[in-house]
């Protein structure tokens, strides 16, 4: 295959280029020609096409996402905001915490195990890149109907992949979500969150400054992963004998990543890098252009020095390769010897591939010939921006008008209703999944599944810790994406506070259908507006996130699924409030008022009712509730959030956790009391002597307070009806083993 150099490009302006096959529109191609003052070389075309893709450039979402900056609340805690690999938050005592969620949806549908595994690997490198030691992961997941045959292929594979990669890295899995809905058939969502910790002075940024500094590639060798599009380019334009076989699926190598983590942390500890960037989507194209444009602007890279797994890769392919487990660092020349030594100690492949220059061009050569000569900013940051059409979708009016039928509950059917609820796949025990994840490794896990939030200790002496929760209620977002986003934010923050941690910062992963559908774009715009407004009102900065579009099959998009992650800090993890009571005789109080909120509820889902008006969240009240929970923490023996499945689910989960029963006394409409999903409610357990205190707290924060029962006994009793704990447990625990118990091979 002939090499297309910059010199050739300059003299062959009329050479046709397959920009459309690479996903570029003709006006985008024109802009590239204008930027360069000539047609791009094939390597330049490859770089621009991948960097200007939706995935890398956020071209459809950018105009909306900027609200997170414009409406950002003032926050002293924010050390690094949106734009870097991950945001960084000050949690006190000199510690900084970084966290972020990312999606790996489509690859996980094609090859569930490897797709999910490499999703975990990718987000962990983002966190590592900030200079932090990764300390925990979470995995919010969405699947098609639990009984669908394809779910039996996809779910076990994804779960094994999340576990296989995360366990091998030694990262405790401290939470996640598993939700089923038919719109996710063909579009499973694999979102992965990672959190890391460092000292303030260890924060690293993606910038290549200091002419003469070296560009160092380390980690796995580069293979032909994820470069299908570029093979098109190589074969079409230059008439090779047809594209070589390129992998359609990337295989992760968690061992290589584990070693890369330890090696990088040792390098950071000795302060050997000026800037650093992980290689993820768009591989070297992204890393070199972002490092260069984040720094002084000039960089020269000898692409033929890149160590290859497949010696037949073309320069275009090397630039595009998305091979996993690689990092790119900027190192001062006098520190390179030590850098190489540490890589050798960990047996990590390392190569100096170029240097920072004092120009403002990114120049890439291949055996001495210049194949790329571009202003790096134009690749990394000046991609196209679309103001895509937005239109309120037609389904909405009908859906909102379709108010769900209120269930009727009385002594004759209440037990069955509860058993049906807690045995339904969305509500049932997830131990079949979470027991495949290591939650003990690193010895700092304070809370993990099935608690409301995950919590890890970050200092063994001071007992400082952080808590994280991720939440999304796509059924609400479907009916009202603006409120849906706020409700998810409120729920995640509440889940942190029930444990006694103070919410500090937000990350998110926005999973949607095609941005080319104005209805989907409207859902997206409303979601971002809701989240930005919510964050502003609650004083919580959005520190980063991820957008995943094109989750749809034909015309049918997934439910709009904004997964919101909230991080909080707790001064002394020993004082946290667990989700369940472990003794008898405690008073159970419900904080918050209950209305008949069935739209988007589990009960409605189970009865195939998808319409209605979603509750409007009152963030001021949510914030008062959070303050109440934090102030009241010393008196709470247990606190558990009410969300999907309402009070019925919450009390069942509390009872089952330690096998201690409860008796509830419920006046009024049973169905509303037990199954409604009115937001802003928490069930707390306290000793009788503290009743006075909770009453005065409720008054102080004007949160409705109802005493609803007592812990104890071997049944869950509601008014005159009792269900034995064994019956409850059977219903709760059998669902997943029955659905997915058949062993996967491998």
């Amino acid at each position, binding site marked *: 295959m002939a090499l297309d150099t910059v010199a050739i490009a300059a003299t062959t302006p009329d050479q046709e280029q397959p920009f459309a096959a690479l996903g570029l529109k003709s006006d985008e191609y024109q802009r590239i020609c204008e930027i360069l003052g000539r047609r791009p070389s094939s390597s330049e075309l490859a770089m621009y096409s991948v960097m200007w893709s939706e995935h890398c450039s956020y071209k459809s979402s950018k105009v909306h996402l900027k609200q997170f900056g414009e409406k950002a609340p003032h926050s002293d805690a924010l050390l690094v905001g949106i734009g870097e690999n991950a945001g960084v938050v000050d949690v006190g005592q000199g510690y900084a915490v970084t966290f972020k969620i990312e999606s790996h949806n489509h690859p996980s549908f094609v090859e569930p195990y490897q797709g999910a595994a490499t999703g975990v690997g990718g987000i962990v490198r983002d966190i590592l890149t900030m200079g932090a030691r990764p300390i925990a992961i979470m995995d919010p997941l969405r699947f098609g109907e639990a009984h669908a045959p394809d779910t039996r292929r996809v779910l076990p594979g994804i779960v*094994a992949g999340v*576990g*296989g990669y995360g*366990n*091998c*890295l*030694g990262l405790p899995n401290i939470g996640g979500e598993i939700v089923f809905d038919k719109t996710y058939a063909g579009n499973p969502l694999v979102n992965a969150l990672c959190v890391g910790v460092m000292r303030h002075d260890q924060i690293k940024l993606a910038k290549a400054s200091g002419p003469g500094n070296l560009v160092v590639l380390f980690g796995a060798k580069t293979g032909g992963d994820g470069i299908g599009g570029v093979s098109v380019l190589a074969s079409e334009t230059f008439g090779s004998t047809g594209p070589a076989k390129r992998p359609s699926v990337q295989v992760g*190598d*968690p*061992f*290589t990543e*584990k*070693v890369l983590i*330890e090696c990088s942390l040792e390098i950071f500890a000795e302060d050997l890098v000026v800037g650093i960037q992980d290689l993820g989507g768009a591989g070297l194209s992204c890393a070199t252009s972002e490092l260069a444009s984040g720094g002084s602007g000039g960089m020269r890279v000898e692409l033929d020095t890149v160590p290859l797994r497949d010696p037949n890769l073309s320069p275009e392919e090397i630039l595009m390769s998305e091979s996993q487990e690689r990092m790119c660092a900027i190192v001062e020349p006098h520190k390179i010897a030590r850098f190489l030594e540490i890589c050798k100690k*960990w*047996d990590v492949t390392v190569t100096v591939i170029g240097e920072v220059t004092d120009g403002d061009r990114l120049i890439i050569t291949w055996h001495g010939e210049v194949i790329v000569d571009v202003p790096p900013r134009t690749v990394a940051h000046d991609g196209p921006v679309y103001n895509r059409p937005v239109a309120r979708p037609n389904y909405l009016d009908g859906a909102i008008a379709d108010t769900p039928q209120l269930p009727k509950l009385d002594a004759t059917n209440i037990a069955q209703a509860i058993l049906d609820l807690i045995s339904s796949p969305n509500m049932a025990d997830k131990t079949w999944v*979470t*027991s*495949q*994840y*290591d*939650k*003990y*490794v*690193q*010895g*700092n*896990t*304070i809370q993990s599944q099935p608690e409301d939030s995950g919590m890890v*200790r970050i200092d*063994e002496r001071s007992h400082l810790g952080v808590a994280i929760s991720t939440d999304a209620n796509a059924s609400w977002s479907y009916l009202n994406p603006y409120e849906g986003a706020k409700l998810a934010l409120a729920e995640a923050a509440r889940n942190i506070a029930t444990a006694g941690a103070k919410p500090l910062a937000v990350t998110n992963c926005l999973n949607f259908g095609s941005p080319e559908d104005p209805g989907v774009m409207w859902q997206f715009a409303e979601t971002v507006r809701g989240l930005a407004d919510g964050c502003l009102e609650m004083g919580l900065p959005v520190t980063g996130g991820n957008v995943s579009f094109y989750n749809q099959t034909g015309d049918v998009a997934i439910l709009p699924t904004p997964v919101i992650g909230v991080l909080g800090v707790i001064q002394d*993890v*020993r004082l946290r409030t667990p989700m369940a009571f472990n003794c008898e005789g405690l008073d159970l109080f419900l904080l918050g008022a209950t209305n008949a909120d069935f739209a988007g509820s589990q009960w409605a889902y189970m009865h195939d009712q998808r319409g209605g008006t979603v509750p409007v969240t009152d963030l001021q009240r949510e914030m008062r509730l959070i303050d109440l929970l934090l102030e009241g923490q010393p008196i709470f023996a247990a606190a558990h959030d009410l969300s999907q499945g309402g009070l019925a689910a919450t009390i069942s989960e509390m009872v089952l956790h330690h096998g201690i029963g409860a008796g509830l006394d419920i006046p009024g409409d049973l169905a509303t009391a037990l199954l409604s999903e009115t937001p802003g409610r928490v069930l707390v357990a306290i000793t009788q002597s503290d009743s006075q205190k909770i009453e005065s707290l409720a008054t102080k924060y004007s949160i409705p307070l109802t005493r609803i029962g007592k812990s104890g006994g071997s049944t869950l009793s509601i008014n005159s009806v009792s269900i034995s704990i064994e019956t409850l447990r059977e219903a709760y625990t059998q669902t997943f083993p029955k659905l997915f118990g058949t*062993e*996967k*091979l*491998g």
Partner: protein
Amino acid sequence: MKVGVVTFPGSLDDRDAARAVRAAGAEAVSLWHADADLKKVDAVILPGGFSYGDYLRCGAISRFAPVMTSIIERANVGMPVLGICNGFQILCESHLLPGALTRNVGLHFLCTPQPIRIENISTPWTNNFQQGAEIVIPLKNGEGSFQCDDKTLDQLESEGRVIARYVGENPNGSRNLIAGISNARGNVVGLMPHPEHAIDSLTGPTADGLAFFTSVLTAMVGK
């Protein structure tokens, strides 16, 4: 007294093991797989993890690390060695312990608080337990099913070398519910579940695991 904790590439529970050693009152000394020097330690722990990714067979590659040559030498003259999970697998691959650990019958990685019974309290790693004590510590592995031939099994049983057994349902298909064994001399112990993750009920299911680490102190001081 000094207890060495070996780090192989891919070790994960080395820090937790060192923390457990310190919690028991001993000094934890970090040992590096590529370094044959045991730094004058009195005992050694091979921690859990996925050394070399465990891609070939758990423990198969680590067994050849330079540090193992020294450990095998000292183990054969009585130095206490505890292999936890991946460490147990390495001890079997090194032939310091008989048998092998194979794929769980459920074919999944399994992480769970696991009840076990201490069956032999005469080893340097179990002497602080009561005979027959039932404790709960985490079990977490994908290849924890202890297998050996009938003759070896008879020998292990008749010599009292099964030091811990799972209680209740067999979690992984191990023969005779074996959770841990020792060598003939008793100084080398392999254990599938993880006592280092159960030294404090704040972060573990219980604090039951600490006694493995205080035991070795007792054993050494008693000498």
